[in-house]
């Protein structure tokens, strides 16, 4: 009997395992991922699109979204440039302590975001190690947009580096040697030969960093001060409105953030192949 079944499975016939295993995957994902996501949209639009639109257009909500996007943008710009530079140096040169440096760059992913925010406070806060020296000069970093950018940089620090470095590692050194024998300077080689091969990794690393920054909560809530229309980012806005019982307001922004991540991951999924194609 069992011999008979396995015979069927490996030739033509109806393979029961295939639809069954797919059903299992969806059944597991339904309560864990799919339904929670769906309920944002169902709940958010249940009392009508007018209400949703009004909640979205509230000045505080718009400010929170803008602040999130702007701070994430600058954190992304910084981390992509730094990641590119660090990946280049660390794959090109071998030196004592190189691995230690690589581990250190990657470390922030392993640190809880609340700890990251707390650490930033201890350094830059009014009584912090460096903040104490800056305060008399009238410079305050914590509880400003700059603090949000710092927190975003910290928690997304290794993401772009992690995507770009492997591409550098697999790049054949004979490409650079070929460019050199043809007469290219180091900069020309980087610009015309190395960089084009990194397009996909750079875009991918940037999108990952941005997506992670926009959603950052744990470190931001500690360093920003969470002041509405001043230092309140979109995730903080959701949290604040929910605490105030304004579920529709929280929900409207949640929908926007969810759509933004769908968009980013669609780009990651479809555009990278295109960017990496030869």
């Amino acid at each position: 009997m069992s011999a008979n079944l396995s015979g069927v499975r490996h030739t033509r016939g109806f393979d029961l395992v295939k639809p069954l295993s797919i059903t299992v995957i969806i059944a597991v994902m339904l309560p864990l991922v799919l339904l929670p996501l769906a309920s944002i949209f169902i709940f958010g639009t249940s009392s009508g699109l007018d209400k949703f639109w009004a909640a979205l257009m509230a000045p505080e909500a718009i400010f929170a979204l803008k602040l999130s996007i702007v701070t994430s943008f600058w954190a992304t710009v910084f981390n992509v440039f730094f990641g590119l530079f660090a990946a280049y140096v660390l794959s090109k040169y071998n030196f004592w302590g190189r691995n230690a440096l690589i581990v250190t760059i990657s470390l922030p992913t392993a640190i809880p975001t609340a700890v990251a925010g707390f650490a930033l406070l201890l350094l830059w806060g009014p009584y912090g190690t460096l903040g104490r020296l800056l305060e008399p000069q009238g410079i305050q970093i914590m509880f400003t947009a700059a603090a949000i950018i710092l927190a975003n940089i910290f928690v997304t620090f290794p993401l772009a580096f992690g995507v770009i470095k492997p591409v550098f590692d697999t790049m054949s050194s004979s490409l650079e040697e070929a460019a050199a024998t043809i007469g290219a300077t180091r900069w020309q080689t980087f610009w015309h030969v190395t960089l084009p091969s990194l397009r996909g990794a750079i875009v991918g690393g940037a999108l990952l960093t941005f997506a992670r920054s926009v959603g950052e909560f744990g470190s931001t809530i500690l360093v920003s001060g969470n002041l509405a229309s001043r230092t309140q980012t979109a995730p903080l806005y959701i949290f604040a409105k929910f605490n105030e019982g304004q579920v529709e307001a929280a929900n409207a922004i949640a929908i926007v953030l969810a759509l933004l991540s769908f968009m980013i991951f669609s780009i990651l999924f479809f555009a990278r192949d295109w960017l990496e194609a030869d």
Partner: protein
Amino acid sequence: MASSTPTSEPAVIVQNVSKRFGQTTVLDDINFEVAESEIVVLLGSSGSGKTTILRIVAGLEAPDNGSVILHGREVTQIPARLRGTGVIFQAYALFPKMNVEDNIGFGLRIRGKGRKEIREKVDELLQLVHLEDHRRKMPSQLSGGQQQRVAIARALAYSPEVLLFDEPFGALDAQIRSVLRHEIRNLLKTIRVPSVFITHDQEEALELGDRIAVLNAGRLEQIGTPYEIYNKPLTEHVANFLGSANLLSGSIRDGQFAFGDSLLEIDDVESLSDGQAATLVVRPEDVFLRKPENLTQNYQRLAVAQVVEISFAGAFERVQVRLEQSPNKNIMITRPKTETAAFPLAVGREVTVGLVRFRLLPAGKTGE
């Protein structure tokens, strides 16, 4: 296309070049020249140092001693990008994100040439390497042979001092190799750019080289035309590496080569003195097997032997015989069809071994 020099000065001079990596001597006092529009093949097994020589000429590696001179200009201290050599890497190293045209025009673009000039040069080169129809393709869309031609065109664009080929056929299968070899030899003879090829393949060396330089463990053992290298090897290594050879140890006696109880007449005695130990080198195709009574004056009698193995190798037959006077030494013979028809052999048969042509090397000059 190479920068022309009015004199007959060599295009490339490699002078007393030595290189060590840690404790290992990779190159030991290498000297050779490449004349204008000449093709020199550096032939050696892996680890013989041939790649290092190429990299030193290109400026990708610095020698510990010695110098590299390109068209009269001492370039030993000059970085690769200012030397103007054209390197064809083993995997071609085409820039993957540039199409064929942009790859070929790269050298001119970074030299700040105008758009029109680049376009004309690229057109001319595409025609030269027969890739006009592929100008917009990316390297990944080309076959190995096409990629190689792009690599050559890319180097030719900026009129290189010398073309350096790093085992350019290594990644291709045998049939394509021989077609490409032919193509490249014709191309190089058309454009007349001095070239250095490195390879471990003797057939490739014989077919491509105007001259062949045989390397062994970091030393240049012999440089000469394929004919000289094949017919007048200076060391046992050269004799063995290029083609196959039978080596027999004997000594010089009364101006003759004594091997067991046979004496062979030798033409060139000046380098060898009486009583000196010597090695006889003979190619398998220069050995003839005869019935004992049939050995004519054309052949020098070496010894009596017994056939131990016969194998069919297509165009010819390969025979191993065991010499009566040195039973642990087999001699290999290749016999063309005319021979096999005139005198069929069977294993166990007794024959007389005659030689038409051979070389003597002073023993000790083994090269290894």
